[in-house]
């Protein structure tokens, strides 16, 4: 029954469900195509940092479509479910699945390009994905519209990309490094991701209860 439930949840999302999987495949394909490039390491790093975290909140947004956006979604609260299980719990479940797939994809890319899997990149991707997942959750709860939530996330990314993170002030969680390796800045960004993720989840959970 549980697996049938997940199957139905995926079906409910429709064709948008496949988007994060396609993006992870693109990361792997770009890594594969850049193996013989002089800038292979930089290309692999940039692709992973720019694409993987951005799509971490995708399933979280569309997984809450029925509850927050579709007409009559409030009836789910009469099923004996609470806002936590319909919100944060579901969001974290999808994040966990996404992180597993993201870690596998990035490990494949690093193995192809550098013949080595860098733990710092894995840690970075996990924390940045956590940030984006929580950010997407808060955005979806706030605007209750999947299209606008995606727009907010993409806008965030575009500002970060074109201003090298400076346009996002303290909300920047990108490193824009040239390569791999642990450093203090990575630890700072990971801490920031964690703190903001917690704040976004708290904010989202508070807003989701509004009637």
């Amino acid at each position, binding site marked *: 029954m549980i697996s049938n439930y997940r199957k139905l949840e995926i079906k409910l999302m429709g064709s948008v469900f496949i988007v994060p999987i396609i993006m992870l495949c693109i990361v792997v394909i770009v890594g594969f195509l850049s193996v013989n490039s002089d800038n292979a390491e930089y290309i692999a790093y940039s692709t992973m940092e720019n694409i993987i975290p951005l799509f971490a909140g995708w399933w979280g947004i569309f997984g809450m479509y029925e509850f927050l956006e579709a*007409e009559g979604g409030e009836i789910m609260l009469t099923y004996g479910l609470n806002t936590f299980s319909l919100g944060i719990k579901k969001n974290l479940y999808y994040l966990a699945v996404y992180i597993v797939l993201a870690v596998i994809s990035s490990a494949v890319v690093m193995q192809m390009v550098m013949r080595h899997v860098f733990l710092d990149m894995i840690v970075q991707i996990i924390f940045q994905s956590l940030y984006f997942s929580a950010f997407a959750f808060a955005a979806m709860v706030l605007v209750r519209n999947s299209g606008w939530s995606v727009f907010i996330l993409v806008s965030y990314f575009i500002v970060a990309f074109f201003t090298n993170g400076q346009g996002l002030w303290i909300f920047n969680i990108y490193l824009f490094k040239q390569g791999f390796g642990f450093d203090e800045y990575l630890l700072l960004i990971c801490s920031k991701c964690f703190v903001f993720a917690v704040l976004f989840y708290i904010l989202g959970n508070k807003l989701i209860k509004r009637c």
Partner: protein
Amino acid sequence: MVEIQIKNVTKKYGKKTALNNINIGIPTGIFGLLGSNGAGKTTLMKCLVGLLKYEGQIEILKAGIKQNGTIKIGYLPQRFMLFKQLTVKEALEYVAVLKKVNNKDEIDRIIDKVNLAQERNKKVKDLSGGMLRRLGIAQALIGNPGILVIDEPTVGLDPKERVRIRNLLSGLGDEMIVIISTHIVEDLDAIAKHVAILKEGNIIEQGSVRDLLSKLHGKVGTLTIKREELQKYESGYSVSSVSNVDDSLLIRIIGDKLPENSKLEAPKLEDVYFYYNGVGND
């Protein structure tokens, strides 16, 4: 016997009072909540199913409808467009999982009950308005709730589908408490045993349909008038219907003292609604 007791329920949105000290006793069977748009029906429904916080108390006295401390209430809001990507059967399976109902036979039984057997493999997004309402009722029935709360069940439906929904609800009224909110009086005319009339957040009348109708005996009549007299009658009485008869008009009027030339008629629920709510308030 009263099964749900609503005591002094007040709901405010900021400074606006949507429900003002509501007191209603709801017995078994079909209970109608009548009122014009904006009267507070939907707000009261949402308070009943626990979607809104309110001042006051709602006591569920009916036995056997609590499961693990939670009251089993089936609810269908006015607007229902969920599970578009799923088929009818999948949508109900999904609801069953959410409600933690493991009985697969129950889904088939409910599909048959709401007469969606032929559409069980049809996608929800391809259903007609009436089928969608029936699916909405089906999702509310999963888990065998003792109380069914339905908001505006027939709005926007064609006459045939309205009758079908009405018959379905009528059958359900024998098994559980069915609370229907509507501004379409005909929806309740033949099926409701008790009604309450809401106006601007206040209950203006409530009771058994029989009692309410008996209160109107001698207060409903018809008479034929000249066209130019219509305005005069509208200002003195509630005129619930006007029809053309040759060069004259046949009007149905409701008032405490009818004109001598009027012919007394048996009151209908619609007359009760107009008597207490006024014709011009919709």
